[in-house]
C-alpha cells in the first residue's frame, strides 16, 4: 500500500501539493514569512523563527526515528563536506539577510502580498539556482568534495548502539533551550 502510493507519480504530485499546502499554511500562521519577524530573528531581538524551527526539529525527530525503528520509513541524509557545508551556506546567509526571506518563506510571503519576495525573491532565487547549475561542474571538481565527512549523524558519533539515548538527550536539550529563552524574556 505504502510502496504503491510512493511509486505513483500522480499520487505523489497530489501529495506534494497537499503537504506543501499545510507547510505554507503553518509558516504563514507562525508569522515566519514576515520580513520583520525574520530580520528581528537575525538581529537577535525576536526568537519566533528559532522557536518554530527547534520545535519542528524535536517533534520531527521523535516521530521519524520511531517510524524508522518500526521499519516504516528510511532516513534521507544529505552528505556534508567542508567545501559544501560551509561556503555555500555562508553565501546563503548573506542572501538571507539581504532578502529577508529563505526560499520557503519567500514563497509564503508572496501569499500575504509581499511583492519584494516575488520580484526580488522568487526571481533572484531561481536565477541563483540556475547560475549554480552553470558553476556546478567546476565546483564539483575543485571544491565540493574537499573535507568530505559523509552523512554521519550525532547518533553515529555519540552512541550508535544507543540511538534513543541520543534522541532523548537532543530533545531534552532543545526543550531546555527553548524554556531558557522564555525564562529570560524572549
Amino acid at each position, binding site marked *: 500500500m505504502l510502496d504503491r502510493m510512493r511509486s505513483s507519480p500522480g499520487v505523489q504530485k497530489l501529495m506534494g*501539493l497537499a503537504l*506543501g499546502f499545510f507547510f505554507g499554511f503553518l509558516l504563514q500562521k507562525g508569522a515566519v514569512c514576515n520580513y520583520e519577524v525574520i530580520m528581528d530573528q537575525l538581529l537577535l531581538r525576536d526568537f519566533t523563527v528559532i522557536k518554530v524551527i527547534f520545535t519542528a526539529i524535536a517533534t520531527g525527530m521523535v516521530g521519524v526515528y520511531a517510524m524508522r525503528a518500526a521499519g516504516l520509513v528510511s532516513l534521507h541524509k544529505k552528505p556534508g563536506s567542508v567545501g559544501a557545508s560551509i561556503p555555500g*551556506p555562508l553565501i546563503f*546567509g548573506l542572501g538571507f*539577510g539581504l532578502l529577508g526571506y529563505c526560499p520557503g518563506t519567500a514563497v*509564503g510571503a*508572496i501569499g500575504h*502580498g*509581499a511583492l519584494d519576495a516575488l520580484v526580488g525573491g522568487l526571481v533572484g532565487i531561481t536565477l541563483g539556482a540556475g547560475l549554480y547549475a552553470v558553476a556546478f561542474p567546476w565546483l564539483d571538481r575543485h571544491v565540493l568534495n574537499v573535507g568530505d565527512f*559523509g552523512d554521519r549523524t550525532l547518533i553515529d558519533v555519540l552512541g550508535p548502539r544507543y540511538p534513543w539515548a541520543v534522541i532523548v538527550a537532543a530533545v531534552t536539550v532543545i526543550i531546555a533551550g527553548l524554556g531558557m529563552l522564555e525564562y529570560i524574556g524572549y
Partner: protein
Amino acid sequence: MDVIVRILTAAEWSPYAVGVGIGVLSWLAFLLSDHPLGVSTAFAKTAGMIERGVRGPQVTQRPYYQKISLDIDWKWMLIVGLLLGAFVAAWLGGTIRWEWVPAMWESRFGSGLGARLAVALAGGVCVGFGARWGRGCTSGHGISGALQLVLGSWLAALCFFLGGIITAFALYGGV
C-alpha cells in the same frame, strides 16, 4: 465549531504549535512520500526548465540538471502547495497586504522601490546559489536534516544563520 473558526481566522498562532505542526508534517512526508521536506531543489528545476524553454533541449545535458532531473514532481508541487497554503492562511487571518517595501526597510532605507528590489534580487541570487552549493536550505537542512541529526545539516544551518546575522547587523546594526 466556533473554536475552529476562531483558530483558523487568527492572524497568528503560537510558534510552538506551528513547530509541532511542521514536525508532524515531516513525519507525513517521510511516511507517505518517502521524502524529507525541502524547498530549494524546486528552484533549480524551475531555472533549468526556463533555460530549456529558451535555449532548447541541450540544456538538459548540464550535469547538474542530469542530477536533479527537470520535471514537475513532488518537490515542485510542494512549492505550489506552499504558496496556496500561505495565501489561504493569510486570507483567513485577514493579514493580506500588498506591499513592495517592508515597513522596517522603509524606516531605515526609505521608500525607494529600486533600492529594495535591487537588494532583494541580489539577496535572492545568493540564497539560490548558496542553497544549491550547500545542498539544501533552511527547510532541507534546518528542519529535515537537523531532525535526522545529520552533522552536515547542523553545520549548514549554523552557517545560514551566521551569515544572516552578520548581514542583518551590517544593515540594521546600531538602530
